[in-house]
């Protein structure tokens, strides 16, 4: 897939978010010429409607108001520009998007553990991630440590086959930590570049299940000191404010290093990511923008913001 295709796909996946968010901001700027209370109130609704959440929204509005005051303007011309600025600040934008992580030959395999609540798209994400690594010519082993859900292994098998990755893990009802251990063994024995370990979906409030997750992590570290090198938490873009709780609790348990935001091809805005980044400083690594195997993309914060706020015809609003 060429770069331009990727950009186009990224944009079309985000189009729905952008249409509603940006179109509405532009409309607002057109109908309200001044940054006053009414304009800010409408802006608040737009942000809230995107799942940015009350706390972060209040923060953004406070900053906007302050800047309007200190920089001495009250025209709404610069509204979308300012908004883009503030969101960028909250997302801690810095330079290039992170490439697919990889370890030097002497230290491989790179171990990635994938966690999240039920139904966010962990298994699908792993299939897509494996495919990306395969496209980059890497050898991939997948550990099927979701031993709880019925037919999770079968689902992963199919994805592994599509991606061209090897799968490690026994039949149902095996202990997930031992499956993870076995996956690392296979990864080392077969000289894999990457081992991706799937885990069963679990609500972050189930303490015993979170303990199980910690154990899986510990066991991997025991087999390969330093593993897992990445712990990815998969977050559904339709998730509301509970997303913050999810990130907090999973981070407490297994030290999440990055987020994957899935299902951005619906109408959901994924604004929770802004709140998460602002509150907890955990970066988004990948986003899922469709159901095809190549629909997972490295998260480019700048591109994300540009796509959200782009006003050019190619990425413009639908109105």
């Amino acid at each position: 897939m060429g770069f331009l295709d990727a950009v186009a796909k990224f944009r079309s996946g985000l189009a729905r978010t952008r249409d509603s968010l940006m179109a509405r901001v532009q409309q607002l700027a057109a109908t309200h010429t001044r940054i006053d209370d009414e304009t800010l109130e409408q802006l608040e609704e737009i942000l809230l409607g995107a799942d940015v959440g009350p706390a972060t929204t209040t923060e953004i509005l406070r900053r906007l108001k302050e800047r309007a005051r200190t920089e001495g303007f009250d025209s709404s011309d610069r509204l979308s520009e300012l908004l883009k600025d503030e969101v960028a600040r909250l997302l801690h934008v810095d330079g290039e998007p992170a490439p697919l992580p990889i370890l030097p030959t002497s230290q491989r395999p790179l171990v990635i553990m994938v966690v999240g609540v039920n139904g966010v798209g962990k298994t699908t994400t792993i299939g897509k991630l494996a495919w990306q690594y395969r496209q980059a010519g890497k050898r991939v082993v997948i550990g099927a440590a979701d031993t709880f859900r019925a037919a999770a292994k079968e689902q992963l098998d199919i994805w592994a086959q599509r991606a061209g990755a090897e799968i490690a893990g026994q039949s149902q009802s095996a202990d997930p930590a031992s499956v993870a251990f076995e996956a690392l063994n296979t990864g080392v024995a077969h000289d894999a570049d990457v081992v991706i370990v799937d885990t069963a979906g679990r609500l972050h409030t189930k303490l015993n299940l979170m303990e199980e997750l910690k154990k899986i992590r510990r066991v991997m570290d025991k087999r390969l000191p330093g593993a897992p090198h990445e712990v990815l938490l998969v977050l559904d873009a339709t998730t509301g404010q509970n997303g913050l709780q999810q990130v907090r609790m999973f981070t407490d348990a297994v030290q999440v290093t990055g987020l994957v935001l899935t299902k951005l091809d619906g109408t959901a805005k994924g604004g929770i990511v802004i709140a998460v980044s602002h509150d907890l400083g955990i970066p988004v690594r990948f986003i899922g923008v469709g159901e095809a195997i190549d629909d997972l993309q490295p998260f480019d914060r700048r591109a994300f913001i540009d796509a959200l706020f782009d006003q050019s015809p190619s990425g413009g609003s639908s109105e």
Partner: protein
Amino acid sequence: MFESLSQKLELAFKKLRGQGRITPQNVEESLREVRRALLEADVNYRVAKQFIDSVQVRAVGQEVLSSVTPGQQIIKIIFDEMVQLLGNTRADIATASNPPTVILVAGLQGSGKTTFSAKLALHLKSKGRLPLLVAADVHRPAAIDQLETLGQQIEIPVYADRGAGAVKIAGDAVAFARKNIRDTIIVDTAGRLHVDEEMMREVEAVKAVLAPHEILFVVDSMTGQDAVTTAKAFHDRLNYDGIVLTKLDGDSRGGAALSIRAVVEKPIKFVGIGEKLDALEPFYPDRIASRILGMGDIVTLVEKAHQQIDVEKATRLEEKLRKSQFTFDDFLDQLREIRKMGPLSQIASMIPGLNRLPANAELDERGLVRVEAIIQSMTREERQRPAMINGSRRRRIALGSGTTVKDVSRLLKQFEEMQRMMKRLSKGNVRRTMQQMRFPTN
């Protein structure tokens, strides 16, 4: 954790009382707190606004202004209004006069359709019905395997036809049910985005061939602002009869329920409260209302305790208590049972009285960790016979657990008191008493 709404409101009104007068403007101010609570609970911002407006009309009236405790009064108005909006009456699912009853299950990806289908089948089976599960999700890899495995677990037949399309499967399944004398068929469809035109057409075609008596829309209770859009889009295409709210066993406040009810006039019929296949419940609007408002949910807490506490262990414990043999080992077990229910702050937030306590008072999670550490630093013998723990042993335990001798002594004293109390309870329902008892948390 969220500050509780009642707490905020009480604070707001305390200020008012100082001023000696309550005006409509002041009421408005407190309703702003309510609005924020609703937004934090993921109630759609438009719905929240409408809701607040309707509450305001009532709140500014006489009943509040003349009330001694306006905070409580406003909460009551809000609560009642919300229960009303969520739907007062219990709605059952339809039964066909001429079987089989056909139930179609639809929703977004990952909302929990397949698990719900199995739960519903089990629920109906326990009522004497003869359900048939139909695997019409031909898109997600291994979805059919998943339903078949679940069907095996609950001993309910699953109709599948690998290679066929969803519409054909649905049509054939009805004939299959007739032939095999199944009186209810539950059709599990693929998850789809409401903006995916092709997939929406597929589910419409499935509906057309099935002519279902009941269409259920399954939605994740953690859904944010988008819940209204999705619920409405599915409703426009399928005109479903009821809503199923899943994953309510988490800590989401479930504002999506209110949002959906506001845009779609259909009842919420079931809620999913766990991964086990019997974790399905009818919908209780008052519980969700308390939850959305962050007012505590004592019923859920009791259920949680019931769910998490190991009955066998509890019975064994009861035995020990009768014989006055409660030791530190048993105490440690109890401690762990309680901690399994969730973080203390979360448990506390479900108890209406407790959420008024200042943060950290008696509920310090680390306090429990400390207690656990102290007990674990005791030898087996010490745990059985705490009386033997003298000064030098206390020093050793303190050193081993990273606490102070004072901490150890305090725990020993509390334990002693507890034991004394237990002895008094040789009769009666010990298990219940255990749940009511306060544990020392340092």
